[in-house]
């Protein structure tokens, strides 16, 4: 047995291969032929709205939900028919699921006790796991004496104490308040770098997913919508569902004519590769749009609009404006003296600018 924080821990991580996993409840496809490769040592997030099937997929990985068909491999081993207690993976449950009749040490040591580890080594491992989650010396506390954040850490310690090569997390931060959640996101990220185990993380919070993940798998209606790194997912969504779910955006219809892409009959300047097909959409992100001050900048698409509302939000302001075709778009900018001074009044006619670099053209499909 090696140390929990062993330098070669990354070598102990296992890749996960998911192939054509399908699960139906009656006529509803909770999972519809999902295939996904999780790389060894990767932090992969399953992101989707509630009811999308992301939790079902995690439960299939953990062995708590039996799929109708498909294949699941940890490394080279087929595990789809293995019962959960033989899968040897750590899991952090949404409500922590800490055993209320045991102390902190009892909870953290539970997987070791099941594995019949010697007392002395067990105590050392428990303490080390608790120190890893910054709860050293908390072993004798009762679960009921802990705060939400501490419970979260204990649940994490219990999931990593036996050095599993795969770690699953089911919305572990959803019960924490925002400040603690932000801090735990960074901590979990560091912990993952430190331990190096393959991690599959489920959340419906896109910001959380963007903050923590190496890659994000967006899931909707039991199907994989897109699998990509956070930056690419945000900047180049594969379809309207992903573009809509990750960040805010408005869409304008566009169409391909030869090499050019037209929006409202005007050709669009764009730098990135436009999507294939003829029916397309231009994605307008609030923070990518700018207020034009009359100056004629090259490489910028211009959209005349009428201001409908300006909302002050402390660190930023949000302006809603209606384009000529009736589409309501949002524009967000940081609050500085110069941006505040130049804010137009409600009802004013403005021109919104979108730089060619920020002009993303996606297929006009829901996925």
């Amino acid at each position, binding site marked *: 047995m090696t140390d929990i924080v062993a330098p070669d821990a990354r070598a102990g991580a296992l890749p996960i291969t998911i192939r054509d996993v399908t699960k139906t409840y009656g006529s509803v496809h909770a999972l519809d032929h999902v295939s996904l490769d999780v790389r060894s040592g990767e932090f992969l997030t399953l992101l989707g709205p509630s009811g999308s099937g992301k939790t079902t997929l995690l439960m299939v990985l*953990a*062995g*708590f939900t039996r799929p109708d068909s498909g294949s699941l491999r940890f490394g080279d081993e087929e595990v789809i028919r293995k*019962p*959960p*207690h*033989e*899968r*040897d*993976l*750590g*899991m952090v*449950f949404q*409500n922590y*699921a*800490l*055993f*209320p*009749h045991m102390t902190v040490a009892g909870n953290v040591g*539970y*997987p070791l*006790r*099941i*594995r019949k580890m010697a007392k002395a080594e067990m105590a050392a491992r428990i303490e080390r796991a608790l120190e890893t989650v910054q709860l050293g010396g908390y072993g004798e506390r009762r679960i009921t004496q802990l705060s939400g954040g501490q419970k979260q850490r204990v649940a994490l310690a*219990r999931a990593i104490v*036996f050095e599993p090569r795969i770690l699953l997390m089911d919305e572990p931060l959803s019960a924490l308040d925002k400040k603690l959640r932000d801090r735990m996101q960074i901590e979990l990220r560091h912990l993952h770098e430190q331990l190096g185990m393959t991690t599959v993380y489920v959340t419906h919070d896109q910001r959380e997913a963007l903050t923590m993940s190496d890659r994000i798998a967006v899931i909707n209606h039991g199907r994989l919508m897109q699998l990509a790194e956070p930056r690419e997912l945000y900047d180049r969504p594969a379809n309207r569902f992903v573009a809509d779910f990750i960040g805010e955006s408005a869409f304008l219809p566009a169409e391909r004519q030869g090499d050019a892409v037209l929006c409202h009959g005007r050709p669009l300047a764009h730098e990135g590769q436009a999507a294939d097909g003829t029916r397309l959409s231009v994605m307008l992100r609030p923070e990518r749009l700018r207020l034009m001050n009359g100056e004629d900048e090259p490489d910028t698409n211009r959209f005349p609009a009428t201001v409908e509302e300006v909302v002050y939000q402390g660190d930023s302001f949000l302006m809603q404006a209606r384009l000529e075709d009736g589409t309501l778009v949002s524009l967000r900018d940081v609050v500085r003296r110069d941006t505040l001074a130049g804010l137009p009044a409600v009802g004013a006619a403005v021109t919104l600018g979108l730089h060619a670099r920020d002009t993303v053209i996606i297929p006009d499909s829901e996925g």
Partner: protein
Amino acid sequence: MAESAITGAYRDDARLDNSDGLRRDAFREQLALFGLCSPALLLVLIILVVPVGWLFYVSFIGADGSFSLENYERMWERKSYARIFWTTFEVSVLTTGICIALGYPFAYFLSQLPARAANLCLIAVLLPFWTSLLVRTYAWLVLLQKRGLVNDWAIGLGLWEEPLKFVHNMTGTLIGMVHIMLPFLILPVYSSMKAINQDYLKAASNCGAGPVRAFWTVFFPLSLPGLFAGSLIVFVLCLGFFVTPAVLGGGKVIMVSMKIASNVELFVNWGAASALGVVLLVMTMLILWVAARFVKLDQLAGGGH
């Protein structure tokens, strides 16, 4: 300066303080609440405090009508009383034990069923509650007696040759009492099992525990409060049980309650009967007091968490 002068004026003005009025309102509200409680308190006084006080008083009155301890001395001196207390204790412990052995697995089975099926089974558990205790006890007598249904059928099927003695002894008493007490055990155990979050078992399983280990290390300890509450109810009810042991015991199983009855009916000795009642009451209180150190007694009523 002008501002502080204004606040000063506010502070000095008694009409803006209102503390006397607020205190009076609080007192009135408490008085009103007490007034609403008083019928209940009066009821408790009339049907509980006065009779129990009377019971204590009568138990210290001797045969000649003067104050004496003879009713308690008799219990101490005569062997038959010790035997009666022992029998009471034995029947209660055995009944409780058998109820646990039968009721716990049944409650577990119920807790794992889907809601509809579990509700149907719960109705089956509760059904006996709606039937008279006396009828149920005599029904057992009819079933279990020498030429009863059970013996007739078993002999007819060749299970045993001679009629077995099921009633008018300890066996009959236990069969009848277990049947009557079982719901009192099943209900609290079931409700404490239902309160166990299924995620605990998933977590145990994820930690590597097989179904059997997960049950003993997680489910069973978490169901103990309900089991303890149910056992306590059954045990305490058994201590004072009368009808079933009287009918099915056939005079061979004498419990404290039956001795109380015979003291009153045969010997018209209210003092002796009261003293037995007091001892039974004190014993029960002692058991509850000890039990309270292990489990919250309010669980006895609700059974939940």
